[in-house]
């Protein structure tokens, strides 16, 4: 087993190293072959591991690979924990990654840095696998930061673009704010539980259920609340929850394949995975669960609203991702870990699909990303159109599609939750269904319906605003009067992702959410068992129940509204935007988070730095203390002249040589 697991992890790494370091030797074909081979091996073996765990009842694998260090009795190891949760994550990560690898051959065909791109995404796959397969907090943090690094490198892939290199730095720093909390959480775990190993920490945790610590003054805080919230701050960074969500929309500066892989399907779900993995800890603190629930629901609804006013096709999908991550987080807060993970899985497929479809449209539109310029694309790009439609239906939770099962399970679970904030969360999540349907189908109708593109450049010169290598590299393409369908390497992954987007929910909701798939992996306290409170009588019963419930009609309402407003009466949208210009303004400015951060945190830090440097270092320490004494020692001026003439140099060299000779002589004599 160890050999299989090591191969799963190291095959993508080997691919990344070959494609990256030997890029001049292997060339383009070599780079994509070797990385696809690596990730392909990894994917096949991961599916095998999933099969063993899901169907063969394979025992939980929890072994150390090597000891990183032992200090002060604290063992820090690199090791794997593979249970059904890990196996599911491994399969999702490697499958989506493989699809994205194949897709990239088409999408990046004419770009500079082709080899570098493949190297990065294979490296990402390695890092993400290390993260989900970790059996301890240290390795979790390794993977956590490593995926952040690759994300940084990929968002800044077009490194000539000012917006891209701003976005990647922003992403890294905002994630570091999360990691700041995360590392303190890990420190707390290490201090109180005396171990960084998951199994040992989870075993030790119940003894600390009532423990308190004092942080400020004499106020006693529940230890578990502090630990869980600190760890969750890390999840807020990685999974882009309010207020640490600001980096994700900007991350769209990266090439579309990585938006699908990293910023939709896998990396951003690391926070959800982490909290679910830590369920034995979170179940001990209702306060932390409330915090998680409220943050998740807030993100789900308010980020969805922004999606309605976006005009960049990728940003619409990005805000949709933020919103869907909010749903998953809210599920965790309601202790419906299985539902959150289930939504993670279905979302990985349909959101990767939507991003890749968006990328396909972008290729067709010659790198114009503005949905106002698109239209009627269903005629020119049928495969892209149909797969995108399936993805959108899955996203809005249309009955039968995968998203329906996962979203309904979450909403039902939050409905049954008794903890503080549950009502607030439930209202927002239900309302969010309408919003989801509205922004999804606004985009769908604007892009795929209508008579034809409202604005289309048959050649590429006009797309300079999208800048850099991406546009310029396409110059050799001949002028085309209309968009046309993408090559098979692009459409094949779309089709392969569309299949699970439709059927995976139907097939797996029973065992995963309401069955025993996660038994022994996820821990839910009896009083928080919200999923258990849902009456489940098979898939069809669940669907029937769903069709009669409010969320379904809200989804239909959103879809219908989008259809009416964006295909029948476009002037309604314009009028509404004018009437509600204040609301439009607030949404267009994304509630002002960016402006606030830029002014207060970025600007404030620079001001503080300038003050400390010029006043603290220059004026006080140097001005008063150091130079003051230098002036009083006027004789030093003489030394200065020596240095300038070079005399001191000879003099000092003589001293040192003399000194050393003297010392050496004593030694030899002794």
């Amino acid at each position: 087993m160890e050999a299989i697991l090591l191969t799963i992890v190291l095959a993508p790494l080997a691919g990344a190293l070959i494609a990256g370091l030997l890029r001049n030797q292997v060339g383009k074909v070599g780079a994509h072959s070797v990385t696809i081979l690596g990730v392909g091996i990894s994917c096949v073996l991961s599916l095998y591991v999933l099969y063993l765990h899901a169907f063969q009842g394979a025992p939980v694998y929890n072994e150390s690979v090597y000891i990183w260090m032992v200090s002060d009795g604290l063992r820090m190891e690199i090791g794997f924990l593979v249970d059904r949760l890990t196996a599911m994550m491994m399969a999702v990560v490697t499958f989506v990654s493989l699809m994205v690898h194949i897709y990239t051959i088409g999408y990046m065909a004419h770009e500079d840095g082709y080899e570098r791109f493949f190297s990065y995404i294979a490296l990402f796959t390695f890092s993400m696998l290390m993260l989900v397969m970790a059996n301890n907090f240290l390795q979790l943090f390794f993977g956590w930061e490593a995926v952040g690094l690759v994300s940084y490198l990929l968002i800044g892939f077009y490194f000539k673009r000012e917006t891209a290199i701003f976005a990647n730095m922003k992403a890294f720093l905002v994630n570091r704010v999360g990691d700041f909390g995360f590392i303190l959480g890990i420190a707390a775990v290490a201090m109180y539980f005396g171990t960084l190993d998951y199994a040992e920490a989870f075993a030790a945790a119940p003894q600390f259920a009532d423990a308190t610590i004092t942080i400020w003054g004499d106020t006693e805080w529940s230890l578990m609340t502090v630990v869980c919230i600190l760890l969750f701050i890390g999840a807020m960074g990685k999974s882009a929850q309010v207020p640490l969500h600001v980096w994700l929309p900007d991350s769209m500066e990266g090439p579309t394949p990585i938006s699908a892989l990293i910023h939709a399907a896998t990396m951003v779900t690391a926070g959800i995975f982490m909290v679910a993995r830590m369920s034995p800890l979170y179940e001990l603190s209702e306060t932390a669960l409330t915090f998680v629930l409220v943050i998740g629901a807030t993100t789900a609804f308010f980020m969805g609203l922004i999606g309605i006013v976006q005009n960049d096709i990728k940003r619409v999908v990005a805000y949709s991702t933020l919103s869907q991550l909010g749903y998953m987080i809210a599920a965790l807060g309601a202790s419906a870990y299985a539902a959150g993970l289930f939504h993670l899985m279905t979302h990985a497929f349909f959101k990767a699909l939507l991003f890749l479809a968006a990328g396909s449209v972008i290729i067709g539109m010659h790198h114009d990303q503005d949905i106002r310029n698109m239209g009627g694309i269903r005629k020119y790009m049928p495969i892209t159109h149909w797969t995108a439609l399936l993805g959108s239906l899955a996203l809005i939770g249309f009955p039968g599609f995968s998203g329906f099962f996962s979203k309904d399970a979450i909403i039902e679970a939050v409905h049954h939750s008794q903890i503080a904030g549950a009502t607030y969360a439930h209202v927002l999540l239900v309302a969010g269904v309408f919003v989801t349907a509205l922004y999804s189908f606004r985009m769908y109708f604007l892009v795929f319906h209508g008579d034809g593109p409202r604005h289309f450049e048959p050649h590429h010169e006009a797309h300079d605003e999208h800048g850099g290598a991406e546009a310029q590299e396409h110059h050799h393409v001949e002028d085309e009067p209309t968009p046309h369908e993408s090559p098979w390497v692009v459409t094949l992954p779309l089709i392969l992702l569309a299949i699970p987007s439709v059927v995976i929910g139907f097939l797996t909701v029973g065992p995963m959410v309401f069955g025993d798939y996660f038994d022994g992996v996820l821990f839910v306290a009896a009083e928080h068992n919200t999923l258990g409170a849902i009456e489940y009588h098979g898939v069809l019963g669940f669907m029937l129940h769903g069709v009669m419930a409010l969320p379904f009609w809200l989804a239909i309402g959103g879809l219908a509204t989008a259809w009416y407003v964006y295909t029948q009466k476009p002037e309604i949208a314009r009028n509404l935007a004018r009437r509600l210009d204040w609301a439009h303004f607030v949404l267009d400015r994304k509630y002002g988070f960016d402006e606030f951060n830029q002014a207060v945190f970025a600007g404030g830090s620079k001001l503080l730095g300038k003050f400390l440097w010029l006043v603290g270092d220059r004026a006080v320490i140097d001005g008063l203390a150091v130079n003051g004494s230098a002036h009083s020692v006027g004789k030093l001026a003489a030394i200065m002249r020596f240095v300038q003439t070079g005399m001191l140099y000879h003099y000092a060299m003589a001293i040192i040589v003399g000194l050393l000779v003297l010392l050496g002589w004593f030694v030899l004599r002794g």
Partner: protein
Amino acid sequence: MTADWPILSAVIWLPILGGALVLASGDKAPNVSRWLALIFAVLTFLVSLPLYSGFDPTTAQMQFVEKAPWIPLFDVYYYLGIDGISMPLILLTTFISILVIIAGWEVIQYKPSQYMAAFLMMEGVMVGVFAALDAMLFYVFWEAMLIPMFIIIGVWGGPNRVYATIKFFLYTFLGSVFMLVALIYMYFHSGSMEILAFHDLKLNLTEQILIFVAFLLAFAVKVPMWPVHTWLPDAHVEAPTGGSVILAAIMLKIGGYGFLRFSLPITPDASSELDWMIIGMSLIAVVYIGFVALVQQDMKKLIAYSSIAHMGFVTLGFFIAFIIMARNDVDSGAILGLQGGMVQMVSHGFISAAMFLCVGVLYDRLHSRQIDDYGGVVNVMPWFAAFMVFFAMANAGLPGTSGFVGEFMVILASFRADFWFAFLAATTLIVGAAYTLWMVKRVVYGEVGSDKVAALEDINKREAFVLTSLAVAVLVLGIWPAPLIEVMDVSIENLVRHIAITKL
């Protein structure tokens, strides 16, 4: 334990002898001097390797001991020996010295033989500082070390080198004088100049505090700790690349080493009494200096300030031990903090060296250190950019690089001392990444900044070799730090046991 042959002496005197030969070779045939210097540096490194392979990690006793009378009148001995604390630092010195010689190869055209000689001699003297077990011998090496550095900055330095050298001299001189007084006081008290004898010397609290403060002045300047740090940015900016590398990678460590060899074991009660002050200064170094680094326009200054912030972790790790030991509800963590500080020293040796070498690569081509003069370097120097981004990430403490290990250990340990210590220390995750990546963004990424940048050539094989060596070291230590911890483990444990016992 006494060695079969005097390895430590060889590691000290071989480079000094080499330095003398290089000096004698003159500047008429610069290549001869360069090769001679390289051969001696490599030889010294090879000779220092048995210190690791022959090291017994199961004992805290001094190893490879050499002892001979030197000035019998004052009981001064030529007394050398190493334990798990000094051994890694000696290997760091011999390793970095090779790279410095290679890095200065074609770059130094003015009096190359004397440049190389100065570095070789400095190498020997620095090893002497780490290996000396006699206080007077230590002091001689300690002072001797300054002279070559003084010369390096004064002769091969930048336009403002005079101010920098004066400042450097003033600071370090003031610090060491008090240390000398403390050493002499203890000599009169104990009748011995052996550092290990000082460890067991009974001292009352007043004596301890005075001695502690005297040492503090010497070591704090070297580390450097806030508020006696302002010489470092100036010295770095004016020093040639090699000088900056040695300064950052080795010399700063001598301050940290001083705390472990002198302050903590000789004055444990004073250390415990004044721990709040050192911890405060360390945290100020981490936070305050982090913000100062953010607004620097000069790359070398930025890295210099970043060094001060990173060294804050070293002193923090050393002194939280006292708070942890004083807490009843925490049973371990002191060793973690001390080891974290040690790892941070070694790691910072690699990373700061690499960062200064990266700046040196740019400076050699464009003769500017100003961030604004660059931009889009990646377009013309892709391999260099890869190294720079890698080392920047290491500087920002990315897991998998050595920069993470020490910071992680110290944060874990300081959490056991006080939540807020860990909180303030952990801000480096954000601020450290901010100043490092902002510099990378402005220097490496973007459109080609100017015609001068457009004309830059990527690193040559010599530069690639130096940077690759450091990259490997940074990665190995980040992925598998266990070997480093193992060699120091017993020595640090012994130190913790020693400082836990009051001398009063």
